[in-house]
């Protein structure tokens, strides 16, 4: 029940939006995320958008994973048994 899925907003009318899911359109409420615009990806939970996905953060997450993969590759190539972890702390730390 707590599973929310990211869907693209294709149209907005008042507080309702049309989102696209595998070619099927459905209506969701935007009352919890009123600043949503057409083209945004929103997380939809039980018929309501609960957040607007931050595209920049999404790209950074992908870049971070790429970086981790790269680091792992290099480590495998150069140092067969590393000791101290010194990887990136991950962005978005909230303290």
């Amino acid at each position, binding site marked *: 029940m*707590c599973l*929310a899925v990211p869907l693209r907003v294709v149209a907005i009318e008042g507080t309702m939006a049309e989102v696209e899911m595998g070619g099927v359109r459905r209506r969701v409420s935007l*009352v*919890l995320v009123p600043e949503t615009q057409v083209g945004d990806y929103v997380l939809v939970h*039980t018929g309501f958008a609960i957040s607007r996905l931050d595209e920049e953060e999404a790209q950074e997450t992908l870049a971070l994973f790429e970086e*981790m993969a790269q680091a792992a590759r290099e480590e495998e190539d150069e140092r067969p048994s590393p000791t101290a972890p010194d*990887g990136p*702390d991950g962005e978005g*730390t*909230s303290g």
Partner: protein
Amino acid sequence: MTQAALRDPVLAQRLAGEILKMAARPVRLMEFCGGHTHAILRFGIRARLEPKVRLLSGPGCPVCVTATADIDAAIALAHLPGVAVATFGDMLRVPGSRSTLMQARAEGADVRVVYSALDALDLARRELQRQVVMLGIGFETTAPTVAATIREAAAEGVPNYTVFSLHKLTGPAMRAILDAGEVRLDGIIGPGHVTTITGTQAWEFLPEEYGISCAVAGFEPLDILRAVRSLVLAIAEGRPRVTNDYPRSVSREGNRVAQALMAEVFTVESALWRGLGRVPASGLAIGERYAAYDARRRFAEAFAGVLYDAPEPPGCCCGEVLRGVLEPTECPLFRRVCTPAHPVGPCMVSSEGACAAHYHYGGAL
């Protein structure tokens, strides 16, 4: 953001390998959320990290933590003449002390499955001759959606819509588990969609008061591994902290609109949890301002016969499973007597229940 990129098996293997190298000592982490439990088992993450990093399931399945007595009350409501109970589908087969909502429906009670509380409100608008009661089940993710329908009903003056609010708060449940001291935990994988609403600030008490870290995670395999990595790193460094490993959806402040709506409609009170008992300040009841939309007040007669000390289904260990004390596979009824087709307890019914997750994906363990 592409889902495939977040499920890249090669990268997942690498990340898992890195986590195992980083873990200075064996650690025990609890994923609060049932959605995480499913992803962790489905993608084989738990098996891959064991035994050095043990992942334990927590109480984060709203259907599972709903008390037997509250299910009895929902069934009693559905049997009232002229009342239709609207519920998310997961609740239908959860056993009360004598019956289920599904059985009640077979006996003639009016039970409707809805995908959204909005559908229940629409039903009330369409069928004015009926009283529609929405079962408000869910944590901070769902509570604001139900609150939105109450406010809308009030603004419009819909006379036949009420909510039976069984909404619960995740923070107090986490505290109850830690205070009980039954399981030793080194870190918590924070629920991604609950925290989308509450913000990571809601988990700051974990490092501050309990000295343990919390990493908020999304639901794809790499999201989860990223959070596990943050926790293992924080443990290795001896610096407990909250990290946001789902920044594309989660912020420190959370969804302020949703928080304000919850505060407007609900008031915080104690709540009965399966497995945890009565937990102070862990439930959301409908406040004075919207008292007219409270099913507890409008249909007080349905609650008169409910036994609040109703026993759990005999032999079912859901309570222990929800506290992380027992693995579903350690329940004597698991798979032998209790299956998704014939569930004994709610942990086998719900799509977020740990027993259902182990039943469907546990073969890999």
